[in-house]
């Protein structure tokens, strides 16, 4: 599914990702943990195609296609979805309108027929119910006046409707209360399937109790410095990142 090979990324001429290699096979869930400032968000933005994240070396491919050559919208149409650490607000664009526009733009790019309003509303209602979201809230400007946790839930709502193949969750658990964490995790788990892969960035083992990863990677100073099974997350929780500071 996703192959990242010796990736180097600079932001404002400052190297942040420094030779990162990662393999995410189809159907697997990999967690990425690492200290603040290690480059986790930089990696997600780079995969999503944000301007200003300059790839100075290496490659990233999705099912063999060069991901880095595509603009963000084209990547999304290929199935990339980044759940933002800090979702943006769009006043004047109702959440429902936004998601339907995005869904139909993706479908158009893939040569599929658009989804009509009634069918879309039906899906949106079911998804909102599953995530225990107030449907009326979805008629307001996207994320405007939403709490931090509500914004995160809105990200998962969008993800569920857009049905991406590569899910990148950047600290989706931060800002969520205990119930919301469970609901959001259930939403994510519902999307787990053979053809779908996930990169789950988090600081906390707690999320990984809900979303069980196949593998855990430690990202420090722009590189993957250790990889292991789910037990690695438990070890990090106990011992912190000290021993990786020297490896980095």
């Amino acid at each position, binding site marked *: 599914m996703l192959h990242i090979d010796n990736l180097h990324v600079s932001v404002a001429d400052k190297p942040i990702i420094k030779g990162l290699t990662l393999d995410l096979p189809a159907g697997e869930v990999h967690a990425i943990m690492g200290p603040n400032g290690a480059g986790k968000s930089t990696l997600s933005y780079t995969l999503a*195609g944000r301007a200003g994240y300059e790839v100075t070396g290496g490659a990233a491919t999705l099912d063999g296609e060069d991901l880095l050559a595509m603009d963000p919208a084209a990547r999304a149409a290929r199935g990339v979805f980044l759940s933002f650490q800090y979702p943006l607000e769009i*006043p004047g*664009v109702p959440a429902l309108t936004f998601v339907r526009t995005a869904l139909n733009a993706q479908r158009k790019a893939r040569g599929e027929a658009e989804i009509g309003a009634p069918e879309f509303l039906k899906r949106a209602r079911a998804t909102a119910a599953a995530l225990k979201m107030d449907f009326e809230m979805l008629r307001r400007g996207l994320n405007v006046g939403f709490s931090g946790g509500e914004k995160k839930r809105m990200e998962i709502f969008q993800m569920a409707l857009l049905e991406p193949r590569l899910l990148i969750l950047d600290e989706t658990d931060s800002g969520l209360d205990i119930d919301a964490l469970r609901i959001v995790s259930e939403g994510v788990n519902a999307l787990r399937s053979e053809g779908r892969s996930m990169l789950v960035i988090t600081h906390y083992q707690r999320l990984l109790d809900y979303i069980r990863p196949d593998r855990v990677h430690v990202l420090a100073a722009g590189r993957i410095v250790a990889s292991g099974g789910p037990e690695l997350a438990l070890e990090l929780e106990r011992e912190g990142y000290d021993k990786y500071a020297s490896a980095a």
Partner: protein
Amino acid sequence: MTGLRDALLSRDETRLPGRRDEDWRWTDLRGTLRPLPAVSDAVQPLAAFDEPEGVQVRRFAAPVTAGTFDASLSVAAGETLWLLDRVDAGAGAYARDLALDITLGEGATLHRLVLAADSADAVSVTRAMVSLAPGATFHQTVLATGGKRQRIETAVAHPGAGARARLDGAYLLADGRHSDQTTILDHQGPGGTSEQLIRGVAADQARGVFQGRITVAVGADGTDARLKHNALLLSDRAEIDAKPELEIYADDVACAHGNTVGTLDAEVLFYAMSRGIPEVEARLMLVEAFVGEIVERIGPAPLQDAARAFVADQLEALRR
């Protein structure tokens, strides 16, 4: 008052207002009409337009060469009127001066929507003089798409005395177009309110101008006057000029004015694109939302629908 009419009728080009005139410094008509076109009554055919129901519609056809036009309207005491003034575009380089008188009787209500379309080569000035009686309500929305020079001026004589005025507007400019919305709000008596919200978008090499002057005369105590202008530059060759002015000679007055000029938020654009919305569509979506707030403030549904359709058409021009 305006020099365009004087210049056209006297055939004297030196009477055109230009950048040396304080009120016209960003809407220089000098040199735009050379030679001055001959004034005649001949007008261009009106474009097809679905007239909304329940609304009084006035169509102002574009002149063939140059023309001066007048119209007046009054809303009787206690009556309510929904009015759509459509200033038609026509084709080619014409000069138009349109002077409108509007009078509202005591307790009367007027919702006025102005759809100002002009050709890219037009020099066009529309002036409305609005006079309010006590207790009258005047809500206006001007939507403009610019011309070679386009000026839409609204002057309101406000008696205070419970009368309310709202002057909203939006301009959506592409190519090398220019549009100027100028408002003059004269609070002449105590206890009046006024509110203005103007949103503008300028792409390419377009130029948007907003001038809003609020005067609160001696004795117009307790006036509440608010004015806000927000504009977006969609290209680094576009230009926005704005001048809010307050002259207050009364006591206990609440006046607020705000003016912002910015660009589309790159982070928000990326967010939308990362969900699969192509850049051009994402930009238009954000512009539509920005201007949409003006449209949503229009009370009467038929006027709101007409405004929304006008904006949608103009967004297509920004797509290119």
